[in-house]
């Protein structure tokens, strides 16, 4: 396998968790709720999935535990911001802090443990093609799942009735309520979906990407996923492209460090985060405002009755 092929493969691995988490947050935000707790939910997903996978020696149970952990965290957030109409920014930040702390507690006994790699899917013939073989036909299940998820989310939002309901609620919850659409129920489910995706992304990090667990291993990926949603202008297809651009930035800076360009490694490590800021800056310069942002994003819904 050439170095070039190896780089391409690692880009896919680095991009997949970003894509999964961003898709979840995208659905949450399209329903009008801003959940800044992605980082925390991801950390919990990573810790719980790793703990479950090691304890029961099962990747499948690990993934399940990660999704459940993310969903539970999201449910907590949903109760606070929907049930009590609390400020979404504050609650989301609190969720991140809680998730990072709690994941440290849960994961502490598992520091130093290792998991075997998850076997990639192999299609005889196709997987053996040069360069593109491993890239397109030899990935693990998560990668294909993330691509399918992108298509499913795009189809759901654009073509399915309840997807239209969700978009309407995110666009203008007062009108949606006046039309009799179930604002709270849809938002609750959308938040849970966001949590499940963040949990799955976390599981991917600890079970596939690193195959060990350490505190704060999410390393800001939740925040990058959040920025990706804005970068993608709340469209699933663009989220896919964005995730791969950021994944590439992450991987290429690692290779640049290895190649010893004489640039401080700290600066190179910062490249993906600088790219995030730059992308947001360029977007806001071009459009004057966040293009495509759901109209009631981040505003609590309190009907008068």
């Amino acid at each position, binding site marked *: 396998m050439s170095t070039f092929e190896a780089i391409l493969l690692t880009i896919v691995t680095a991009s997949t968790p970003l894509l999964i988490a961003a898709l979840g947050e995208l659905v949450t935000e399209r329903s009008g709720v801003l959940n800044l707790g992605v980082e925390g939910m991801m950390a919990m997903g990573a810790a719980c999935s790793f703990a479950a996978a090691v304890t029961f020696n099962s990747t499948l149970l690990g993934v399940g535990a990660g999704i459940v952990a993310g969903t539970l965290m999201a449910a907590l957030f949903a109760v606070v911001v929907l049930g009590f109409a609390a400020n979404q920014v504050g609650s989301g930040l609190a969720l991140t802090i809680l998730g990072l702390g709690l994941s440290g507690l849960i994961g502490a006994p598992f520091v130093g443990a290792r998991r075997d790699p998850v076997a990639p899917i192999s299609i005889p013939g196709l997987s053996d093609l040069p360069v593109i073989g491993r890239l397109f036909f030899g990935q693990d299940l998560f990668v294909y799942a993330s691509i399918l998820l992108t298509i499913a989310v795009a189809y759901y939002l654009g073509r399915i*009735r309840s997807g*239209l*309901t969700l*978009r*309407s609620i995110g*666009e*203008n919850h*007062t*009108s*949606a*309520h*006046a*039309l*009799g*659409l179930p604002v709270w129920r849809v938002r609750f489910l959308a938040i849970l979906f966001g949590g499940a995706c963040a949990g799955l992304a976390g599981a991917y990090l600890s079970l596939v990407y690193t195959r060990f667990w350490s505190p704060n291993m999410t390393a800001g990926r939740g925040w990058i996923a959040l920025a990706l949603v804005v970068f993608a202008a709340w469209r699933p297809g663009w989220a896919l492209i964005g995730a791969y651009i950021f994944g590439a930035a992450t991987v290429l800076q690692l290779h640049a460090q290895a190649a010893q360009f004489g640039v401080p490694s700290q600066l190179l490590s910062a490249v993906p985060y600088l790219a995030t800021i730059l992308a947001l800056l360029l977007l806001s310069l071009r*459009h*004057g*405002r966040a*293009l*495509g942002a759901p*109209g009631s994003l981040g505003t609590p819904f309190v009907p*008068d*009755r």
Partner: protein
Amino acid sequence: MADVSPSGSPLVELKGISKRYGDLLANDGINLAIQPGEIHALLGENGAGKSTLVKILYGVIEPSAGQILWEGRPVSLSSPVEARALGLGMVFQHFSLFDELTVAENIAVALTDDWDLATVRSKLGDISRAYGLALEPDRAVWTLSAGERQRIEIVRCLLQNPRLLILDEPTSVLTPQEAEHLFVTLDKLSADGCAILYISHKLEEVRRLCRSATILRGGRVVASIDPRERSARDIAALMVGNEIGEVRTGTPHVPKGAMLTVSKLSMPAGGLHGQALEDINLVANAGEIVGIAGIAGNGQSELFAALSGERLADKADAVVIAGKTCGTIDIDNRRRLGAAFVPEERLGHAAAPTHRLSENTLISHAATEVSRSGFILLNAARRLATAIIKAFDVRTPNGDPQARKLSGGNLQKFVIGREIIRQPKLLIVDQPTWGVDAGAARLIRQALVDLAGEGSAVVVISQDLDELFEVADRMAVIHQGRLSAVKPVNEWTKEAVGLEMLGIAQTQGAVHAV
């Protein structure tokens, strides 16, 4: 559409409906009955309890007491879904549309049955033809005019085969032509047996359309009348509780030199949905009121921003106030030249909602009198607020309340009074009486006329044509960021203004020329 049931048995009957918010009794024992196929008017000033009553009928809020009978059976409406299932449809005053979605999507989202967009499109076509409500299914709503938006709301209701259609102030955003178009549709619906509850404060419309009317004042029914048998003045008196005088026009205004000269003002659109200004020319002389008509979103806010200095022009000589070029100086410096500005949005633009009235005087008086070297002169601010409250009859719950505690009309009196009390040489006001009750509107218009009578120049941007014909000396129409010629009011007709508002005046001229 539904059959007309024998006359005498009402389609819907409200009995003793009351709604209490804390100490406030918004609805107090209201009785109301609507027959099938009847167009029934609900009249009242702002705050009379019309919106509350309608929301109760549509299941948005719950009544504290009382009963709703639908075809004689008591029903409890705990959500709009139940109301719609019974056969109620509602067209909201501030449209309940989703700007970023297309017309077809906006309609589909409100339908209870299963759908696909192709079905919605074909149904949309049927209804459009039957009632003359033309709509393009794939346009995004934010690109549409207010009249087109209202059509979406009406079509959305009609697709559910309603028995009773509620319209809340439907013509407040329409041109005269669009309004007439709406009346034709409503007449057709009524002939098909659909009852209509028509909420308005425009009396001529009600007299044109309705055979019965219920008048609310202070949350109670004060009269049930046949509006065709009463004069508009009579009905207005019932609504307000005392007779409304007409605005006195002062002595005929003798122009005494230009206070405001706008020449070749162009400005790019500010935001995603903004409107660019193109080559605006306008003069306002001392002692006259210049009115600017137009449908919402045709550049009024942009023009206001350019005149006030919230957005600066490229060239200094695009805006000249009191002989000084000031296209590139900010709002405070324009105030120092004797200009004053009242924007459209009362809460959030003209006043800070959670600040007290005295603190709100700072917004426009900081440049002139209530602050010194960066320090606020609190006593001066309080004295000023008290003076405004007294001079402009602002009703407040206590001496110095937060701005958001005031009703719309009272806050509007305050923000306009705040500028007029400075005796500005030039006053520019956007939508001076939008959503304000008749009493407050009269007071505000009188104040504007008086200010011009004392020799100031006043520019009134408004969507209310009646208002402009009442107060303005000269008038122009803004359409898609371009201003028509400014002509004396008596040379305009409502029809001519309507055509300019739709931007078809020139085209028609061309047709005639051919």
